[in-house]
């Protein structure tokens, strides 16, 4: 019943699709927004709107204050040591591109290498490929085991002196496994190698503490964690952020500009060129307030309970479908580190056919390579069907999904 109350906070969940009540299971692609987020954006667009920083009037003060409060909120949410560790970007992709561009410009040289985990989203692979190409460095891949876990056995060999940075997936958007990021970071640090964590899914499905993880960078998107689209975060340790050159330039990220030469502001502004998405970014405040209730507040217990049941249910029931392969499950059916993200392929049933039938039944799932083509190749498929659940999804929806999936399979075979 608690989940039903949570659902009421999200207007989108009251919607219909193709004449059926919407069952939204594409949360790893983007989350729905709680009422408080919608209202804040509405309020800002409707009046609390003025460009941030350096204005000398009340309205501008108010918006700037909100924008900077969002920085405090994010810092607190991931337990960053200081607010200056938080750079606002436009999403995980732009956060990672920033590091791939600026860290590598400063620290990557010909012959060096970058280690990327094999479950990487394109956004945490391609920027490194391009950065490596630019200087003649290479990208190495940490292989995956058959069940989707990192194959840590390879790590010793891969982590050598040539590696200048490790790019790791906290939780893969395909496999839904919480990876041993802390352990990886310890190992990398023992060789003096920094670690960037792609937390696009990790920040949604686990309680993130960047000081505990001790990672050097942590990237995530606002739109996947209840905030507005076009918002993102890059957490970085100060020592790196201060050493790195700026990424984009222009606007208020400067110290002094002449026609001949420019010096730059300190962090975080150095990395925030141009007018930021101040309205969207301010929505981190209500979004993360809500997320904190889920990860450590009053909603933790009911959500954990429901999610746990969903994971158990689908981990057990999905494989009963004839010819179905479920990707990303810890050995011996251990569901401890599994989050409610279920990617499958089913013999004789093409993913987009399944999704089309589910669509007619009101269910939104994702199919295709899910921006992880090499991962598809790893498992010998071109496409999967993914159902990804959020804190507002119910066991009942999981059951309905299974029922409809079975129906689709019957129709297609």
């Amino acid at each position: 019943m608690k989940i039903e109350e949570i659902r009421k906070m999200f207007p989108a969940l009251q919607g219909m699709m193709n004449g059926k009540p919407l069952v939204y299971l594409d949360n790893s692609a983007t989350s729905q927004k709680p009422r408080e987020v919608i209202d804040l954006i509405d309020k800002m667009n409707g009046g609390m709107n003025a460009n941030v920083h350096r204005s000398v009037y009340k309205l501008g003060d108010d918006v700037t204050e909100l924008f900077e409060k969002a920085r405090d909120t994010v810092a607190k949410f991931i337990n960053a040591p200081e607010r200056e560790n938080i750079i606002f970007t436009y999403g995980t992709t732009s956060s990672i591109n920033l590091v791939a561009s600026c860290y590598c410009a400063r620290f990557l040289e010909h012959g060096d290498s970058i280690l990327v985990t094999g479950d990487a989203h394109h956004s945490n692979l391609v920027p490194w490929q391009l950065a490596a190409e630019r200087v003649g460095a290479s990208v190495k891949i940490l292989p995956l085991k058959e069940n989707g876990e990192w194959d840590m056995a390879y790590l010793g060999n891969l982590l050598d002196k040539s590696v200048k940075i490790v790019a790791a997936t906290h939780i893969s958007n395909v496999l839904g496994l919480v990876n041993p990021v802390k352990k990886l970071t310890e190992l990398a640090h023992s060789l003096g190698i920094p670690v960037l964590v792609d937390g696009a899914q990790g920040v949604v499905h686990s309680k993130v503490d960047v000081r505990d993880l001790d990672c050097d960078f942590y990237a995530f998107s606002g739109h996947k964690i209840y905030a507005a689209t076009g918002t993102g975060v890059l957490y970085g340790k100060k020592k790196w952020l201060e050493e790195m050159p700026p990424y984009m330039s222009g606007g208020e990220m400067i110290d002094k500009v002449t026609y001949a030469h420019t010096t730059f502001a300190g962090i975080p502004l150095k990395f925030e060129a141009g007018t930021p998405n101040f309205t969207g970014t301010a929505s981190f405040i209500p979004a993360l307030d809500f997320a904190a209730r889920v990860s450590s507040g009053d909603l933790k217990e009911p959500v954990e309970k429901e999610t746990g049941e969903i994971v158990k249910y689908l981990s057990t029931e999905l494989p009963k479908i004839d010819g179905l392969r479920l990707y990303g499950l810890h050995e011996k059916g251990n569901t401890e580190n599994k989050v409610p993200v279920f990617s499958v392929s089913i013999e004789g049933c093409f993913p987009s056919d399944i999704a089309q039938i589910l669509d007619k039944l009101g269910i939104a799932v994702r199919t295709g390579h899910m921006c992880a083509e090499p991962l598809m190749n790893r498992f010998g498929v071109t496409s999967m069907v993914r159902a990804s659940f959020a804190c507002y999804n119910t066991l009942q929806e999981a059951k309905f999904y299974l029922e409809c999936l079975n129906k689709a399979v019957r129709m297609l075979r």
Partner: protein
Amino acid sequence: MKIQDIENEIVEEFSAFTDWMDKYEYLIDLGKNLPIIDNGYKTDGNLINGCQSRVWLSCTISDGKLYFSADSDAIITKGIISLLIRVFNGQSPEDILKSDLGFIDKIGLKENLSPTRANGLLSMIKQIKLYALAFSEKRRDIKEEKINKKEGEK
């Protein structure tokens, strides 16, 4: 039979279905029965990449009429392809160029042709029209022959 008549015929057939499930089951059946393209023609040259599903299309001309065979890895897409082929097969390039395929909307499959679905169908229709265009311009000076996509694009 004229394109418009075949379209009408299809609309008539689909009017028998009372809900989407019957319609989809019919499409799936059609898809299953679509004569698989000769493996020889399932080449990269005949491939239309659609992100969600791939479509292969090959075209033959005989007696001034065009004939198509096609395949897709998605069965519903294949079912719709089979409708398209039924409409287009044996038609003249000129008639194909003129057709607007209004029946797709009428039988309620519009979303399958939307560019957002990226299932290759839209590109396939574009390709069919390109073939038709190529033949309508070239037919006077070409022999009956099979051409592949690359030529059709010229």
